[in-house]
């Protein structure tokens, strides 16, 4: 009964970025080992498993773009967005779920159906991660605080639980097209940089951001904002618990209305 194929599972270890994961999808697919015999994994491998062989996937823009185009064409915009968003959330199973979702999607007569197959566990996970990523990104669209540096650049620092820079960059690029601005992710030492009237880009290993100090106007606007923030609350409806659940402490360290100068 037990027909041992003696097959090892090949685990493709990819970099924890969209490019990394999609390169992994490309490699796993073209390995022709059969979908059941491959697995995708992001990041370093802490616990190696028996009966697995490991292969490092090198992130490759060209491969990733090919996969992305296929997703867009065959699985539709919705699935495309799901995958792009899910890829930024920290989750150990995301790369494999994305791979399975693509495999199933491409086997359907109409690949667009895949984004609605929420009873399928892999699709469900990607769906959930997308929701989570969107939620995180959306919060940062509001909670990012720019301060104006001496040279007029608007500078902001965040410490995000997911790699959302590329998700929020288009929003701010559209919003502040004529400004030079930077959002720096302290946790990942990455920054998105937007020169006025040009397109934004991501800088990796952006360790040293020389702090120029604030512009002369900066302290004035910060104090005005604090005045406003204090005045707009209704004392007889004070609700610190609600305030805390809507705006947890981790965000507050970057928001001047909560930091005492």
């Amino acid at each position, binding site marked *: 009964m037990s027909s041992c194929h003696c097959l090892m599972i090949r685990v493709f270890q990819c970099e924890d970025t969209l490019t990394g994961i999609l390169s992994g999808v490309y490699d796993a697919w073209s390995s022709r080992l059969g979908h059941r015999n491959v697995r995708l994994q992001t990041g370093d491998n802490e616990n190696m498993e028996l009966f697995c062989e490991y292969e490092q996937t090198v992130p490759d823009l060209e491969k990733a773009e090919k996969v992305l185009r296929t997703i867009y064409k065959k699985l539709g915009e919705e699935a495309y967005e799901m995958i792009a968003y899910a890829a930024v959330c920290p989750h150990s199973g995301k790369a494999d779920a994305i791979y399975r979702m693509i495999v199933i999607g491409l086997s359907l007569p109409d690949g667009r159906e895949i984004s*609605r197959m929420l009873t399928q566990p892999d699709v469900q996970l990607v769906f959930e991660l997308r929701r989570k990523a969107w939620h995180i990104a*959306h919060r940062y669209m509001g909670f990012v605080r720019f301060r104006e540096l001496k040279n007029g650049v608007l500078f902001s620092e965040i410490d995000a639980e997911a790699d959302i820079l590329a998700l929020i960059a288009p*929003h701010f690029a559209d919003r502040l097209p*004529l400004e030079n601005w930077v959002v720096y992710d302290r946790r990942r030492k990455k920054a998105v940089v937007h020169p006025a009237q040009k397109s934004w880009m991501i800088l990796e290993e952006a360790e040293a951001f020389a702090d120029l100090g604030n512009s002369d106007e900066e302290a004035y606007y910060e104090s005005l904002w604090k005045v406003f923030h204090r005045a707009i*609350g209704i004392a*007889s409806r004070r609700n610190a618990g609600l305030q805390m659940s*809507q705006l947890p402490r981790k965000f507050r360290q970057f928001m001047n209305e909560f930091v005492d100068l």
Partner: protein
Amino acid sequence: MDYRIEQQIDLSQKLEILADAAKYDVACTSSGVERNNSGKGIGNCIKPGICHSFSADGRCISLLKILFTNECIFDCRYCINRRSNDVPRASFTPQEVCDLTIGFYRRNYIEGLFLSSGILGSPDLTMDLLYQTLYKLRTEYHFQGYIHVKAIPGADPELIERTGYLADRMSINLELPTAEGLKALAPQKNRPKLLAPIQQVRRMRIQNKNELAVYRHAPRFVPAGQSTQMIIGATGESDWQIMKVAEHMYKKYEMKRVFYSAFLRVNDDSLLPVIPGGPPLLREHRLYQADWLLRFYGFGTDELLSEEKPDFNLLLDPKCDWALRHLEQFPVEVMKADYAMLLRVPGIGYRSAGRIIKARRLGTLDYANLKKMGVVLKRAIYFITCGGKQMYPVKLEENFILRNILDGGGRLRTAAEEQPVYEQLSLFDDPRFSM
């Protein structure tokens, strides 16, 4: 004789006075329009709106919410800025409002501006100042973020019209749910005068839609629609009367939002009630939940309340309350029920209802799936079956359900082994995020 000591006050003091004076206006949402930047200015709008901070009362801060002036010639009894009060007074200039808006917006403190005002001199004069401010922001600064502006009742309709082409949302507050209440507490205002600009905005919006159908690039008039606000508990209206007014506002005037504001006794005035326990926040919360049911769940006011039962149950949300009075319509089979019926199940929101409809076409659902789709099982289990099965053998019986739902902290007393963790049922579940 009236002695007034003229004193220069700086922008910071003005902001303090005029934000403080605006804080009772509850509308602060920046939602309803999607607009990209033209590439030549500052700002955009995204449809769901964005919260930029939260104030000490837990409300979202999205807009720079200020009065243009609180030097008001009117004497509305419930209002802190009424003429007869001795409070610090200030007025902005259009330039100052622009500086604040742009300075805050660049730093990502806000989504835009919410400009309201007391009546300075006359309605026309005030409306003109609001218009000038918006004009400056839109044309000099090319500001493309969100603007919510008040239309001043009694102002020249042409001024209101011109302002409407610069704003995203316009609002005229009804102030009190009924004409009688208004007469008693705001003697210089009257219902027809408040309704006139509401009617005008509605008319212009329809006209504008037709224009836009022909000329795609025609300027847009109040694209995020209009909203209004009522004070709850200052006068003796029942919830039923209030919801009737709200329903009328949605149907007849195509209001985007009706806001409810629990009465705060800011003035010591013999005509104002003293409410033991402070502002009726829970009542306000129930009205918001019911409002949600009207707008997104296909309920009518007369299903929820009646002359005989004119007020909401403060212990239960209106949807649960309705369901318990209509147990004959339950349980609902999740795999078969239509969208309208799913919406009526406590614990199923409109998003999860939509997801259920889509997902069940492609496969069979179980309770774990439902949970993942956002269904609040601790409420829904009494009212649904999934694939013909109940999650646990629970009774479809009013008192039993009531006891269990109210005992949110406790566990279900059934024989089932595996049970989900019950969260404490919060009476202040925000209706905008749950239900």
